């Protein structure tokens, strides 16, 4: 059996609440009296349980979406997987290597939510900086930076300072730096948050492209429609607990319903189908004119005049 891209077992994270905030917050929303499975010693201080008893297993090559409302523990989970935050209990591994080990990070690229990079660096310098942190140098690094600038479509902006970049461009350069050392796993925290539809589409296309190249992607999002488009599997977190998990099509399929989409169908034809359905014990429950999505409309409209 090969190692899972990400394995999380029995993960619990309790954040201490700074003393001064305990007084100012009268009725904290997500503070439990005595969280389940948390020892009394841990609970003797007021604390926030960000993640509770989480088990996850992400197979190599899949795109996994960690979904949930703001504050449900998605970011904390990702940070623990990346070793940025230490778990209170439980274990996380990346390709079989414990997250607390620095070398586990060789196989992973990370794009934080709303990333800020050093504003005084140009796009290319940013990639070179992060490349050096991953042990790249010389021709190899230059080549890799060129490739990635091409991949994320920032070749023309390579010599511009990041302070002049738009939100979408920052997100793309962030994606490029996450990929600089050719990681097998990509962790993206809200990759499309705050990006306009065109930028968001670009990023989703990139993710699909990466999946095609065999890269495992773990992303968190609260934008469900977008996650639906690209994720193979999703897990839904609520208050730090994984409430639902599975393959996307299985989760959202309505077992006893089938959709037909017809072009140039006359009213007579539809009536005929309806009769046919009734005669075989089926029932037509909806009949409506197909619509495009607002996003599609927006993308078509905006891409006509300008070539983005």
């Amino acid at each position, binding site marked *: 059996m*090969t*190692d899972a891209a990400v394995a999380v077992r029995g993960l619990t994270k309790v*954040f201490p609440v700074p003393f001064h905030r305990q007084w100012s917050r009268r009725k904290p929303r997500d503070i439990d009296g005595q969280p389940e499975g948390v020892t009394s010693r841990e609970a003797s201080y007021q604390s926030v349980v960000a993640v509770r008893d989480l088990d996850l297993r992400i197979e*190599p090559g899949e795109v996994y979406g960690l979904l949930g409302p703001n504050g449900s523990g998605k970011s904390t989970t990702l*940070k623990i997987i*990346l*070793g*940025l*935050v*230490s778990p209170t209990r439980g274990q996380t591994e990346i*390709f*079989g290597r414990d997250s607390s080990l*620095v*070398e586990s*990070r*060789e*196989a*992973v*690229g*990370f*794009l*934080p*939510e*709303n*990333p*800020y*990079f*050093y504003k*005084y*660096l140009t796009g290319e310098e940013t990639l070179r*900086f*992060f490349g*050096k*942190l*991953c*042990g790249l*140098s010389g021709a190899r690094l230059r080549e890799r930076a060129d490739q990635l600038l091409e991949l994320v479509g920032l070749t023309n902006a390579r010599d511009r300072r990041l302070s002049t970049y738009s939100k979408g461009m920052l997100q793309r350069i*962030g994606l490029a*730096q*996450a990929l600089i*050392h050719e990681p*097998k796993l990509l*962790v993206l925290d809200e990759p499309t948050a705050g990006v306009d539809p065109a930028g968001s589409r670009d990023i989703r296309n990139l993710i699909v492209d990466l999946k095609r190249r065999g890269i495992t992607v773990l992303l968190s999002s609260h934008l469900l429609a977008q996650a639906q488009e690209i994720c193979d599997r999703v897990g839904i977190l609520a208050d730090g607990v994984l409430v639902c998990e599975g393959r996307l099509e299985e989760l959202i399929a309505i077992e006893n319903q089938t959709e037909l989409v017809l072009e140039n169908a006359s009213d007579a034809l539809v009536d005929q189908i309806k009769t046919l359905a009734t005669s075989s014990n089926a029932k037509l429950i909806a009949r409506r004119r197909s619509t495009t999505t607002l996003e599609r409309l927006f993308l078509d409209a905006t891409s006509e005049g300008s070539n983005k």
Partner: protein
Amino acid sequence: MSNETAAITRHRAFSVARVFAITTNTLTELTRLKVFYVLLIFALLLIGSSIFMARLTFQQEFQILKDVSLGAMSIFTSLLAIVATARLIPQDLEDRTVYTILAKPVPRFEYIVGKLTGVLLLLAISTLVMSAMFLAVLYIREQAVLHETLRQMSAAPREQIDDALRAVRSSALNIDIFPGIVIIYLKACLLAALTLFVSTFATTNIFTIVVMVFIYFIGHLQATAREYWLQEHSTGWITHSFLALVALIFPDLQTFNLVDDIVVGAAIPLGLFAKTAVLGIFYTTIYTLLATFVFYGKEL
């Protein structure tokens, strides 16, 4: 699959290249600070202004020039060490740049060391610039005074002229100033490392700077507290333990003020210089390790 994994396991526990990348980046970041230029220009103006102080005798002039210049260097480097370091880590935390860096295979120790080395480089550059300015001003004034002396003494015997010129030269530059400058630099390094340590558990820059200003002043009085603690036993136990705490927690910054004695011509034995330098490096190392320790326990 297993082959691939083997290929990437060759991770180095400490990599100079990674530290260097963080160092150069930090240096770039710091040279973009306006406060750096304001302080540097102020210090240079102070040193440069000494050139117009011709009202006094040359001994007085040289002495004041040296006092003011080295004093300005000492204060500027200390201040820069504190101000530049205080914002370094909090800024990265606030901007979340630290996430992207530490999500790479970079040990936190390397991050801390890289950041600190960036500050130390900046301090070294500033010290060099100020030293160059100081030596240039001193040289210009020395030449002027030598010319003047020669002109006034043109009729005097050779021996007397030589004596007079020697007097001018010896009161201008004494070679002990150079170890003095090195000690000024080491004091700034110590303060930078200490500031980094404080900034790992403080949450705001202002908090760090205020704490550091306190430490700066108390550090200069530490020797006094320490000697009272170790020699006077007549004090009450509260005073006694207070003095002990001051002596143990704070560094003895007075030790690094050798330059106050050097400017007036005191010679610094090599052994003393070496011991002071070792103490400075020792402090800097310990504070860096402490900063690393706190940073390792930090939830990002």
